[in-house]
């Protein structure tokens, strides 16, 4: 058998020698042809769209971009700001008129507190104003460390981290944990900074109806069924619920105990935004967890700003070290931004001192809120939206006049009416096109501890009067 094969081989070689030259050349060409067919693409991708340079020049010449920004009409409702001269405290001068402030979120009246100012001044004399660097590169001051420590102790959590800008706090915290492919369950009424944080996270978003736990549970159940279909994916898909303590857009409080129950039932983590409720709710001002008596360790992350009750600048997140520490390298607004000016941190610290020394301040605030809330009931044409213990709540038109623009105009007339009579109010402002679920137009009323009962009564009766004259 072996010799047979050898014979064939010898024969082949012989044939090769004997074959005429033209035959060999032909076969060679054929082989090359086959190789070419094997290695060349069968079609060319861009053959059709090849443009000559001249055509390209023409296209470039032809292209006209849109203007950088569309023109804004001179009387755009949000173009002309109110000008506040002097401090924006209890007595405020708006457009030259002295008013009582029912618009700034200065709930505890700490904005022009002498003690706070003195601490800020002392810090200014020691550190100057700016920090000239991010936290990583010599922008960490001893004041920052102390404030973080104090905030953690105040909230009774393991750790706190401070940001230099309230808006950036939750907007940076969410994308530090929730990534592409993760699922976030979020309340429809969530404020804008949450929405931006979610957008930056590129996670999969599921909106549930405002404060509707049944709707949330329905979504969670749906997800559970989905997970059973694909358990491998489910094992790595993180899920979060993002809610606010007191909602900026509605003045409602979130049903936290129910949320915690759902958290353990469906194994979802809770992120809680407490910008309005921190320093307001609870016996010691610890916010909505204290208000409901929920164990703070059950909440994975709490974020709040120090721009409302604390009346400084900046924000913080707190929770367990396991969670919070991660932001020190992953929180974009923390790593890549200059740190909080030390004098503002010192002011926030003194505000915490005042809150700790005198927890009665929260009772006073709550009573005033209730008082105002009650006084504003029963105005024809306007309804009060929000909890009775919320220091920032909304007045909404009972019946919309049909278009948002007309509503805004009516409410503006009410605000102007009050402003002329020394009560400074403001409409809640939104970016109509950017909001996921645009809240209805409202006037926001802010109650602070500095407002006397007479002033509350005065404001309420003025608003009533305004509604009667304008809404008819």
């Amino acid at each position, binding site marked *: 058998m072996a010799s047979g094969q050898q014979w064939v081989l010898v024969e082949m070689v012989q044939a090769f020698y004997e074959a005429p030259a033209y035959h060999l050349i032909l076969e060679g060409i054929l082989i090359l042809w086959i190789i070419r067919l094997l290695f060349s693409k069968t079609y060319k991708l861009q053959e059709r769209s090849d443009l000559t340079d001249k055509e390209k020049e023409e296209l470039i010449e032809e292209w006209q971009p849109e203007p950088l920004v569309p023109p804004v009409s001179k009387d755009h409702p949000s173009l002309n700001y109110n000008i506040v001269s002097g401090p924006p405290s209890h007595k405020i001068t708006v457009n030259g008129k002295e008013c009582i402030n029912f618009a700034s979120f200065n709930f505890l009246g700490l904005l022009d507190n002498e003690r706070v100012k003195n601490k800020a001044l002392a810090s200014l004399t020691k550190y*100057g104003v700016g920090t000239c660097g991010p936290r990583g590169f010599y922008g960490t001051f001893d004041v*920052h460390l102390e404030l973080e420590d104090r905030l953690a102790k105040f909230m009774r959590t393991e750790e706190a981290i401070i940001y230099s800008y309230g808006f950036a706090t939750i907007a940076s915290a969410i994308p530090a944990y929730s990534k592409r492919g993760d699922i976030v369950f979020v309340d429809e009424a969530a*404020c804008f900074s949450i929405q931006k944080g979610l957008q930056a996270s590129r996670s999969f978003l599921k909106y549930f109806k405002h404060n509707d736990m049944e709707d949330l549970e329905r979504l969670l159940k749906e997800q559970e069924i989905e997970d059973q279909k694909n358990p491998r994916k489910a094992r790595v898909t993180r899920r979060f619920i993002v809610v606010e303590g007191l909602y900026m857009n509605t003045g409602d409080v979130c049903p936290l105990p129910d949320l915690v129950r759902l958290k353990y039932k469906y194994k979802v983590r809770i992120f809680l935004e407490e910008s309005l409720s921190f320093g307001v709710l609870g016996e010691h001002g610890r916010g909505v967890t204290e208000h409901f008596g929920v164990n703070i360790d059950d909440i994975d992350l709490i974020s709040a700003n120090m721009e409302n009750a604390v009346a400084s*600048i900046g924000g913080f997140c707190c929770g367990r070290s396991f969670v919070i520490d991660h932001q020190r390298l992953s929180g974009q607004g923390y790593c890549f931004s200059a740190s909080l*000016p030390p004098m503002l941190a010192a002011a926030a610290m003194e505000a915490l001192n005042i809150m700790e020394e005198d927890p009665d301040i929260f009772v006073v605030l709550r009573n005033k809120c209730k008082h105002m809330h009650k006084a504003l009931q029963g105005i024809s044409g306007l309804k009060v939206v929000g909890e009775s213990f919320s220091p920032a709540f909304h007045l909404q038109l009972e019946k919309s006049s049909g278009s948002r623009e007309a509503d805004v105009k009516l409410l503006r007339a009410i605000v102007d009416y009050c402003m002329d009579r020394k009560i400074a109010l403001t409409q809640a402002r939104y970016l109509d096109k950017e909001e996921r679920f645009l809240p209805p137009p409202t006037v926001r009323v802010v109650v602070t501890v500095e407002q006397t009962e007479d002033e509350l009564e005065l404001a309420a009766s003025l608003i009533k009067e305004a509604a009667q004259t304008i809404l008819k």
Partner: protein
Amino acid sequence: MTESAANKPENGEGCYRSANGLKPGQNGCVKHHYLYQQRQKKYCYPEDQVHHVACNGGMYKRPFNESFEETPMIVAVLTYMGYGILTLFGYLRDFMREWKIEKCHIARERDEQKDFVPLYQDFENFYTRNLYMRIRDSWNRPICSVPGAKFDLVERVSHDYNWTFKYTGKVVKDVINMGSYNYLGFAENTGICADAAADVTTKYGVGVASTRQEMGNLDRHEDLEKLVAKFLGVESAMAFGMGFATNSMNIPALAGKGCLILSDELNHASLVLGARLSGSTIRVFKHNNMQSLEKLLRDAIVHGQPRTHRPWKKILILVEGIYSMEGSIVRLPEVIALKKKYKAYLYLDEAHSIGALGPSGRGVVDYFGLDPKDVDIMMGTFTKSFGAAGGYIGGRKELIDYLRSHSHSAVYATSMSPPVVEQIITSMKCIMGEDGTTIGRDRVQQLAENTTYFRRKLQEMGFIIYGNSDSPVVPMMLYMPAKIGAFGREMLKRNIGVVVVGFPATPIIESRARFCVSAAHTKEMLDTALNVISEVGDLLQLKYSRHGLIPLLDRPFETTYEENED
């Protein structure tokens, strides 16, 4: 300067092309520079280039010296080996932690939540756990004084290899500060700025507790914005409470779906985030590479949007004035020429360059002697040169009106703190000379002198320095991961505070130290710092450069801006 002289004919040739063959602004020169960079990785424009200036319409009035010396091969190999060893040991120690041979310091999940989906992927923290943790003491060093030319550090020690720090209660006094972005030395606790800020604190308090659109628009904010507009030479300006957010919250107001954003590959995280939030298509061009930018522009206009082939609504180019990790200065004249040719819009982030560049401290536009009107969106921060916090955007009145009504920041974020505003107003007036002194101008001048001196000395010592010769941000290459920590520690031991950076802030092999020169540094301080750097450089063998510069002893200590006035 020897190299630049040698390259002169080439430059001339490049310009000839643009003069003869193509229309002005057609970027014959641009192409040429690109090739040049490819070949030499070093930009040099001869000082006496009258010819050059004439033929491309005065693109560069100053010599543009920018260098990125290539990494020596042996160093690159050793660096990769370093990372390899660290990674191997990382796995080993992870294994030991897993089996409880080594004590684990990492914070753990609560027991109640052990059955939740893990919050972090295991590999996510591998780098942090095994590489960063070894040299963590070089970052986040707490300071307890003004971040001026010298500062005091809070002493801290770690007994568990950087997992936790203990404060000893002692203070390391008078450390020379080469890390803070205090370019003009306005980080001060005495003087006019601090006094003005103190007055305002007493009058206004520190907070505002409302947004600009609602009840937080103070008269001081309006004053600041008028001043900023005047300073920049633009029609109108708006200020925001945080520099990072100025980018991330305003770019979405300017671009949206159907728009194209062309972004430099080394742009800051805030620009990247802003671009991403805007929902536009983002394309990235090579760092400061005009040919890459032009190609993207051409392709974008010719081909339109992907799939639909509709023309783009608008094209926005995002660049920075000084790149904070490279120390390079944007090639602004060429960017403007391209932007005009292709009808794109230009967003210029002057976070590091405002105050720090230009004969009158007006930033990179001033530095190149250009018209601020050619830049559509002038953005910058107050954190650095002004010693305050926040950011601004300046431009045409229509732009600012639009932002006032549509910026996320104006509607939803608390406005700036009054004392911070006052610090900016006072320091800016000082730079403009409106306070009746020449302090501001002198500081701008001093910074330019310090920068040239410091950069030149480092180069002479044989370090590899990145970036433009006029940039006060001075990155010095360390390369190897072990040297990051070693350099930071050795410098601190000798009472100099420096910033060291490694991956992921830089490419993996290009770890570096970064010095920020300040006008507040005296010549003695710089000399002390330079001596120490040289000493540590010898100790750690950091003098990698093979382009030896001979010290020019006869060269006087000259002022940079005057040398080109003629």
